[in-house]
């Protein structure tokens, strides 16, 4: 039952699987993003309160969800690397960090652009916005810490510790709109009961969400191959891998 898990600890296996999955993830992402963009920008009706401005939801929500998802992946991989001493875990965490940071910046920028017409300001020290900014600082901290040590294994361990401890910020970001008074609207899709959105607006959003997730999976696989090669370049299997 656990064979697949043990196989994931093998760098050549992970390198091969990641290489094989990239075109599938990229193809799926392209299809989902294309449908989401066309349906979200041209077919979905305008919102009764926000008019056409709400269409920013089609990039803001997927990027915000991804910023949390990528952090969770990075923290889980770091915990696996720390607990079971599986080196591939460090490679996954290192590959995920820059992707997560870029999507956190995207969520913050698109949120600001949406905030200006709706709240009258690009930025407010609101619980959701502030905790998302802290998430960006955590990503930057993890990346900086990894490269701050001369010995790569020490950098890996320090970055893994920070990533694992920093997971506490993920539920804070998610529930900030529930726990504190916030300018930011509450949950629309991920909540108990049915989503408070009609299907004509919801399906393009789910498609963009899926597209962003598949895109992340593709980019993670590409970066992971690079990380594994960098870490295993003294191994004999690398000779075969770099031939192509």
């Amino acid at each position: 039952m656990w064979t697949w898990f043990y196989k994931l600890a093998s760098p050549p296996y992970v390198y091969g699987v990641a290489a094989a999955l990239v075109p599938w993830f990229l193809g799926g992402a392209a299809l989902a993003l294309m449908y989401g963009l066309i349906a979200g920008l041209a077919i979905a009706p305008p919102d009764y309160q926000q008019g056409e401005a709400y269409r920013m939801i089609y990039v803001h929500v997927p990027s915000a969800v991804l910023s949390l998802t990528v952090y969770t992946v990075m923290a889980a991989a770091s915990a696996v690397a720390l607990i079971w001493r599986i080196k591939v875990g460090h490679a996954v965490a290192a590959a995920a960090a820059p992707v997560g940071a870029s999507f956190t910046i995207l969520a913050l920028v698109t949120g600001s652009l949406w905030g200006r017409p709706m709240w009258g300001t690009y930025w407010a020290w609101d619980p959701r916005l502030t905790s998302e900014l802290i998430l960006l600082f955590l990503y930057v901290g993890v990346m900086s810490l990894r490269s701050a040590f001369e010995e790569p294994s020490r950098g890996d361990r320090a970055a893994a510790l920070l990533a694992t401890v920093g997971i506490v910020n993920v539920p804070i970001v998610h529930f900030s709109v529930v726990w504190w008074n916030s300018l930011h609207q509450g949950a629309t899709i991920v909540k108990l009961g049915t989503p408070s959105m009609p299907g004509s607006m919801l399906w393009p959003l789910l498609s963009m969400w899926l597209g962003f997730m598949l895109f992340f999976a593709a980019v993670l696989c590409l970066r992971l191959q690079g990380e594994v090669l960098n870490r295993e370049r003294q191994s004999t299997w690398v000779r075969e891998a770099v031939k192509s």
Partner: protein
Amino acid sequence: MTSNGFWSMGGYARYVWPCFGFALAVLAWNLWSARRHLCAARLRARRELQMAGIDP
């Protein structure tokens, strides 16, 4: 939605289009940098093998 209405986004064009433009830029940067990261790692591994006298 008419073509004019589409591009003007009901008066919110200066917020909506930069939002989508920035998203496109982030996706493109991610793909480009991930490919560059992999190519650099392959090149580095090849060079180290050649320096060790092993022709990959």
